């Protein structure tokens, strides 16, 4: 079932929200032991909420555009009264006293939260293997990873546990798992969706977005969760036109670039072939295609792996055992801080905190953090030139299809390379999404990434709809 199909049926009274929710909860109960998409399933709460929606419909009131739509939330989105763990031991026992802005907006639109999804701890990873609660498996092939860090959300949608899930994307954490699981995943323009209530990994890069099975569903959900929020100073102050309204406008006459820097070395040939096929499809639909170039983009991964850990080292300082979450006692307060953090954080989180702390240290700041920020500026400038010539740019989302569980865990650099195509967009703040476009030689899904300038979502979704229709 699609988001729009469910909402339509519930709004018109054809189906009860309760029956929809029960059906999805049944699927989770049957399949999630194997997949482990969820850290927590809020079955009782979901049923109660579905009954409320049904009462609203019965009373003839508007139940909202997403009435009765089950939604899975990445476990770094704060949910009032429901534990939010970031798949980390350090948040053990913490129950947020407030809802993230996006959670409130989904609730207000009539959606029903069915559970919190697994992730790499604090969103640090590309395979969801860095979860303190065990990995998530890819529903397309359970010996493979679902990608990460929003692997639980991607897997939940791919497995049919929910028609929509929200994730967060700091360096590709929505798009890469969407590609690996064969679903649609959107990283909106930085500031389009409020971050209030998203547990921060890297504040200048984090952005919340949806996973769905169709492009139209993603547009409908984005239209609900986006928009100005006075609680987030970085949220864009002006309301944007709904993406759904122009979904079917096609790509005739649009200028589409194929990004040279993300098409060559390191891209698996079967993935590259699918991207070429997508480009042809856009061309057939009337787009004018040419090669585009953003030379500094090749340094994106290096800059990203300094900026993101630097911000993370500061964002994660508050997990000190004083106020909430895990506390391991020590002889003094600093000893208690150290003991709590040593026990509470996993290896990858510790690695990034150390890298980030180092990058910001006196005497190293200019060489690492400062230089990375200068590279970021260069990439922004390069893309500004690209947008002078193109409306959209196309690239692979991930260099490969889903890899096997355990394949890259021993080699952080190999794991980091999974993000090579996705991180430049987080550094520039512009919009991007991944659309499933066939399979690779191994029969596993391949995602095509569409990049648009800041607030270019309407055009980006038009191209995504064309690709979806041409599959």
């Amino acid at each position: 079932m699609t988001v729009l199909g469910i909402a339509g049926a519930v709004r018109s009274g054809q189906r009860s929200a309760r029956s929809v929710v029960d059906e999805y909860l049944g699927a989770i109960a049957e399949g999630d032991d194997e997949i482990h998409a969820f850290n927590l399933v809020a079955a009782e709460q979901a049923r109660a909420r579905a009954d409320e929606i049904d009462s609203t419909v019965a009373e003839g009131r508007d139940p909202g555009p997403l009435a009765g739509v089950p939604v899975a939330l990445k476990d770094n989105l704060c949910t009032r009264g429901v534990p939010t763990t970031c798949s980390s031991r350090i948040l053990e026992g913490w129950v947020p006293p407030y809802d993230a802005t996006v959670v409130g907006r989904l609730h207000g639109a009539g959606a029903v939260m069915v559970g919190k999804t697994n992730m790499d701890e604090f969103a640090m990873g590309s395979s969801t293997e860095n979860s303190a609660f065990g990995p998530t498996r890819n529903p397309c092939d359970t010996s493979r990873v679902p990608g990460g860090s929003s692997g639980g959300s991607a897997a939940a949608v791919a497995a049919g546990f929910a028609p929509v899930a929200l994730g967060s994307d700091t360096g590709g954490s929505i798009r890469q798992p969407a590609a690996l699981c064969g679903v649609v995943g959107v990283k909106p323009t930085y500031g389009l969706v409020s971050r209030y209530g998203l547990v921060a990994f890297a504040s200048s890069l984090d952005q919340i977005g949806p996973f769905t099975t169709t492009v139209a569903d993603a547009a409908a959900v984005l239209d609900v969760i986006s928009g100005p929020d006075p609680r987030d100073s970085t949220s864009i102050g002006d309301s944007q036109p709904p993406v759904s309204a122009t979904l079917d406008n096609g790509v005739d006459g649009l200028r589409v670039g194929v990004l040279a820097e993300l098409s060559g070395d390191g891209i698996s040939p079967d993935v590259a072939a699918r991207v070429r096929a997508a480009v042809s499809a856009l061309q057939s639909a009337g787009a004018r295609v040419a090669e585009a170039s953003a030379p500094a983009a090749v340094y994106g991964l290096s800059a990203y792996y300094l900026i993101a850990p630097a911000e993370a080292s500061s964002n994660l300082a508050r997990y000190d055992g004083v106020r909430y979450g895990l506390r391991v006692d020590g002889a003094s307060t600093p000893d208690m801080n150290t003991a709590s953090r040593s026990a509470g954080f996993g290896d990858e989180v510790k690695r990034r905190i150390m890298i980030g702390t180092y990058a910001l240290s006196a005497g190293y700041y200019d060489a690492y953090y400062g230089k990375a920020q200068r590279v970021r500026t260069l990439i922004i400038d390069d893309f500004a030139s690209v947008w002078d010539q193109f409306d959209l740019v196309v690239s692979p989302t991930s260099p490969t299809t889903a890899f096997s569980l355990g394949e890259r865990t021993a080699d952080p650099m190999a794991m980091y390379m999974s993000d090579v195509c996705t991180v430049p967009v987080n550094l520039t703040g512009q919009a991007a999404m991944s659309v499933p476009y066939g399979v690779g030689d191994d029969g596993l899904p391949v995602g095509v990434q569409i990049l648009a300038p800041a607030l270019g979502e309407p055009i980006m979704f038009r191209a995504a709809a064309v690709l979806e229709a041409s599959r």
Partner: protein
Amino acid sequence: MGAEAQSIPGLGAPADTEWETVVGLEVHAELATETKLFSASPNRFGGDPNTHIDPVSLGLPGSLPVLNQKAVELAIRVGLALNCRIQPSVFARKNYFYPDMPKDFQISQYDQPINVDGWLELPTGRRIGIERAHIEEDTGKTVHIGGGGRIHEAGYSLVDYNRAGVPLVEIVGHPELRSATEARQYVAELRSILVAVGASDGKMEEGSLRVDCNVSVRPAGSDRLGTRCEIKNVNSLRSLGRAIDYESRRQIDLLTSGQPIEQQTRHWNEDDGRTHALRSKEEDHDYRYFPEPDLLPLDPSPQWVEQIRQELPPLPRDRRLRLAEAAPSADAAHIALAVERSLDELAVAAIGQGGVPERVMTHIVHNLADGPGELTPQALASLVGMEDKGQLTATQAKRVLAVLVDRGGSPQEAAQKLGFEAMESVELESLVDGLVADHPDEWSRFCDGDAKLTGFFVGQAMKATQGRADGKAVTQLLNSRRG
């Protein structure tokens, strides 16, 4: 050197003329906003622990700061009052672990503060440079339970986050103060300015004004700065003076005995009157400052800054100048006191309405310490006019003034109600003649030039009239009769 410093055992003889004390102050002032710097919790002193809190001021996961525009306006007022340049600024994170800091970083301003390059003029006329005055958030408070409240002996600690996120402006002065006295003048003047512009209540005892002082010494005449020590926990103007005197004495003694000064942070202990080493430079934090990604750069429009400038009330310095103009013979200290007590406007107005400046200032300085109450400038001017004409004695005037402060009205009315009708001069003359006749011995001693006897006769006159007689008029009559 102050007397207190010299009295401490084990310290050598002072050598003031050979050494110069150099002081630079960092003053934290809490801004008088309704709500916190980044959230809607109340900015209020006291309250039950952890009642003025919310997800943002507790730094809960997922919470984000939103800048309080009122705090920015107050900070700009401070900048303008300190003659600073207001510039585009950036918030930064200052990272260090401390339990009373909810996020384990403090949002502050680092290399791009909002106010830079200003100055403050001491009442003596000397200008002290202000390096910067930036905005930052306050921390919570840790209470150590057991072990007499000292952290190292405490059984456990409790944290109150009511103060966490309260807006502060940190005013960093150049090391241009040259004594404990100047440092006290600087803080007193700064406090007057902060209160005058409505930026802060300036209460040191409630911690809304906190002073860290950097002290160093150098041979008199040298233009190089010595190694400095930073002194924390100075909670009153008096402690500030004592701490600086003690610390400069300590440093001079080290240097004169050939020992080096170690750059340290030191803690002022009010009880033993000494500073104690807290940590050395090597133990200082690496704060790993970087721009706060959750906040946009702060770039106040020139129009807004100009509007704030237009709305600034007169500053203490200007008010002192105005009062000095109105009362040219008044003592500078009295002028400063009048301004500090916000009595200057009343004084200027009363003088403007014909009040004799000297008499007006006497009441301002001595009789209005608790504020002017219902007293109007017109009433004050009339009151001193009555005194001047001998219609009221100083003692009577003081009592009339108390009534005017309490209930308002005119001094004539109040004097009448109190039964203070001025003695006619004929009545006073016959009284003096009677006293001379009744006390021949005292009179002859007075005529021989014993000035003490003036007091005797005035006292007798007062006694006879229950205070209605004007002492000055009595003296004049005595002198005229002596011939």
